[in-house]
């Protein structure tokens, strides 16, 4: 191969030449990149603060998703809740101990048939004009207007005629809300709602000013300048998909909230590793930690904290008549053949998760203390023998020899797939059942849940407000979120009591009975109460995580450099 013989010197010469070329190309590349950077600078944003900037009294954080829009009457996702919690304020708000405190309303009164709120004078919008009761009336009417198609409209249903207005059966003017004057707001109830103050702290109850709204031409909430703010911070800059800058609102009335001058959201990604790396690199001020990241956190000697995020996850059965899971004994068999402790402690391994015992999480308040202390959850023990008995009973009742494959509907997150695979093998081992895992992406899972195309679904529920009812009404027959279509008169009666009973003890008793009924009749397989392990830069104090309200709360945060 004589071509190869000359290759040596050929190669030598060429590679030298190549090297020169390489240098030349790299130089051109450099210039090219600079040129690109010029254009990139105009396309992207350049807010890149370090995690804590002491001179500017500013911090940098990361958000996991971008808020689709910031119209408080229509927002439904966690990210917009976070932004709105810092830039807006409702009648009532939470202090840093999760207690209700006056917000825009300086005092209020809740009676059997309604409530009255007195708006404080100092409450102002970010353009200097005062916040008035009219702003709340306008906002709430907008939420319930069927044309708005607000998904959280249901949370205003305790207001008189709210549901009818929302269904389009009554005009907006008939809604039981009136601004008697600029500073007094009167609300009529559909039925007695003693927990209305807790509801009023929710995002969907935030005010919107009518004249400003009109001036945005349907783009209210779409951009930073398409919003009016009455909270501790204003949205100064919003580069979609990239970053946000929140600046202290000069017109905000409460000097006990909002100590930082600036909060920069410089990164939007939900990749846990990216967040960890950003924190490690000192670019953001806090991050959540998933189980695989904990060894790194311990190695870095970080101060790890944890928090219950409030949501509960459980296996929900399909109660429709054409499903195997409609059979009570079958459900009981599945309940008895598992142990949530094993799921949480051995399989999921998240330090902040708690094995669930009941539909009501451990932090729900009862009469004086924790609900679960006053009304303990029914005892559960893994009992394979008893489970098999129930299974045989179920087979006899259904008239079958063996159970057909059972479909477990789950999401596409790795945690839900992990749990699903665990259950698949567990039920095969303990009960000889074949479970098929139906992993679907979000919208398709929802569609299947709504149409009832599943036997078991891995469900989760996050609290909307600080009252047991937010979990307690899940299995009422009229609740559209009751995807399994469980129906019993007893449950419906109990929920009605829980909704409008004025005697707190009777109300709590109703919840206690609901808990029992869920264990005995509805039968769910409680999985875990979700929590978050997280780490915060040690120089930042006052950072809060909340189970009801924004996941991360910087309203009380301040920089302490010691």
């Amino acid at each position, binding site marked *: 191969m004589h071509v190869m013989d000359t290759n040596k010197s050929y190669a030598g010469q060429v590679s030298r030449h190549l090297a020169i070329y390489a240098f030349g190309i790299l130089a051109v590349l450099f210039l090219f990149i600079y040129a690109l950077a010029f254009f990139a600078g105009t396309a992207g944003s350049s807010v890149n603060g370090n995690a804590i900037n002491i001179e500017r009294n500013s911090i940098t954080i990361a958000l996991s998703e971008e808020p689709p829009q910031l119209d408080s009457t229509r927002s439904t996702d966690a990210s917009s809740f976070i932004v709105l919690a810092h830039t807006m304020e409702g009648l009532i708000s939470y202090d840093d101990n999760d207690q209700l405190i006056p917000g825009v309303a300086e005092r209020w009164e809740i009676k059997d048939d309604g409530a009255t709120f007195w708006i404080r004078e100092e409450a102002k919008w970010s353009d200097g004009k005062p916040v008035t009761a009219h702003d709340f009336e306008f906002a709430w009417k907008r939420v319930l207007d069927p044309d708005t198609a607000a998904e959280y409209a249901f949370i205003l249903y305790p207001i008189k005629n709210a549901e009818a207005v929302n269904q389009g059966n009554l005009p907006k003017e008939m809604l039981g809300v009136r601004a008697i004057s600029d500073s007094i707001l009167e609300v009529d109830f559909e039925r007695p709602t003693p927990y209305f103050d807790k509801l009023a702290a929710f995002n969907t109850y935030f005010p919107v000013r009518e004249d400003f709204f009109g001036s945005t031409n349907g783009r209210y909430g779409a951009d930073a300048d398409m919003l009016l703010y009455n909270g501790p911070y204003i949205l100064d800059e919003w580069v979609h998909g990239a970053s946000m800058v929140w600046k202290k609102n000069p017109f905000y009335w409460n000097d006990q909230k909002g100590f930082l001058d600036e909060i920069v959201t410089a990164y939007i990604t939900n990749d846990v590793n990216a967040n960890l790396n950003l924190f490690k690199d000192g670019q953001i001020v806090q991050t959540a930690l998933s189980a695989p990241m904990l060894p790194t956190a311990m190695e870095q*000697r970080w101060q790890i904290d944890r928090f219950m995020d409030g949501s509960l996850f459980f296996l929900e059965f399909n109660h429709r008549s054409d499903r195997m899971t409609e059979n009570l004994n079958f459900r009981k068999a599945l309940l008895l053949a598992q142990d949530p402790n094993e799921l949480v402690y*051995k399989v999921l391994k998240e330090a902040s998760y708690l094995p669930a015992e009941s539909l009501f999480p451990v932090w729900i308040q009862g009469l004086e203390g924790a609900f679960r202390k006053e009304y303990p959850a029914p005892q559960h023990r893994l009992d394979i023998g008893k489970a098999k008995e129930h299974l045989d009973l179920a087979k006899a009742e259904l008239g079958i020899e063996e159970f057909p494959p059972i479909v477990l509907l789950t999401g596409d997150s790795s945690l839900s797939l992990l749990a699903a*695979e*665990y259950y698949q093998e567990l039920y095969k*081992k303990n009960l000889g059942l074949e479970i*098929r*895992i*139906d*992993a679907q992406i979000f919208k398709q899972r929802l569609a299947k849940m709504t149409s009832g195309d599943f036997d078991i679904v891995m469900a989760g529920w996050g609290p909307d407000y600080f009252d047991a009812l937010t979990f307690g009404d899940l299995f009422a027959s009229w609740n559209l979120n009751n995807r399994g279509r469980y129906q019993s008169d007893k449950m419906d009666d109990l929920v009605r009591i829980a909704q409008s009973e004025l005697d707190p003890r009777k109300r709590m008793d109703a919840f206690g009975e609901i808990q029992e009924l869920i264990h005995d009749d509805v039968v769910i397989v409680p999985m875990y109460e979700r929590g978050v392990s997280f780490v915060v830069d040690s120089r930042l104090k006052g950072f809060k995580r909340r189970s009801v309200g924004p996941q991360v709360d910087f309203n009380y945060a301040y920089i302490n450099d010691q």
Partner: protein
Amino acid sequence: MSSLSPADFERISNSSEKENISRPSLSYWADAWIRLKANKRALLSLYLIVALLLFTIVGPLIWTIDPAFQDLDQISQPPGSNRLALIVDDYEPWTGLSSSSENGLRLAESATTMAVRLVWDVLPNASGHRVYRNIFPVGTERAYGIPLAEYFDNSTLFFEDRLDLKPRRYFYSIVSLGENGELQDEYQSIAVDLQRVTTMNEARAKGLILPNSELTTGDSINLNLHPLGTDYLGRDMLSRLMEGARVSLFIGIGAPCLFILFGIIYGSFAGFMGGKIDQFLMRFADFVVALPFLLFMILFKIAFGIGPGESGVFPMLVALVVLMWPGTARLVRGQILQIREQGYIGASQLLGARTNYLIFRHMLPNTLGVVLVTITFAIPSAIFIEAFLSFIGMGVAPPTPSWGAMSNEGIKNMLTSPHELLLPAILISITVLAFNLLGDGLRDAFDARLRNQE
């Protein structure tokens, strides 16, 4: 001007020895085959491919552990871990009683991988306590580690830890809480070494204790052997890799072969025909490339009627082929356009070669270089796309493993248990290497310019 003699003009005799045939005339294909056999790279690739096939087909017959079996006491174990365990009684819930008479933070009983039971006395100024666990000593920075529990009054002075207990040393700490639940300065810390344990029932369920065995609590036994370690659910890596090989090799080799075959036919046809046909065919290829992949995958899944949770390997193969051929087609077409203009093609045509002959004998072997490169890259692509598609329910359904899915799962625990990612990745690399070498060998064998050069 040399001098010529009449002797120079004498005729040479017509004996037949002068024109001996020293060896038989070889056709192009025969020559290529001989060269292939002699090629060292091709030989190596052959060994690798045979090894992979043995691994896939014979392996499960020898190593018979169920790939779906979850050994929850040995989750994410690296290969070669110690598996000695002490047999203890079954787990009973703890009420906080302790027979220990010491003071301060202490163990209520010996610490095992089943539970670590701690008791403590009220710390000074404490309105509550928080329990932490670390894998490193707390040290002066007060890095307590992972918070495990909080108690906001002093009525509960015990805690049972069952979270992900490994047989190693942990450092537990108790920190005092103030009235608002905030951390205060006082703390206590102890080091605890955990003993790996199992119970009689569990051991029997895993087949570790035979019915007539005399083992009882207090004895030690070895837990199941996992030569390559276990994954995040305690499943044996070796058997999962073997079972995953079937799917991954089938899709990883089958799909590329098919779509490349189709791409070659399509591309060479387009390139050879040229003109309007070429334009039309290429535009259609562009159209296919631009379609949103995920969307159409979902449609395929429905079209094939795959039920929830069922494995849809064959539909996946079809889907992959249908959506991935354009790349090869365009590449081959480009090569054909170039080759079409070469001198030997024209010469061949003049000699009366028909189109088939031109394509199969001249053009295609010369596109082989490019095609083989594409195959090399298509294999891991197909494997990873298959893994990705299991998210929407295409491909294999759990618990059936595949190398791509195992790699994806291994990413999450990349830092803590790298073997979960490395092992499938190594196998994928070996597969790619094998076909890479095979491709090189084939290309060398078929390269007409190297012909007859030994």
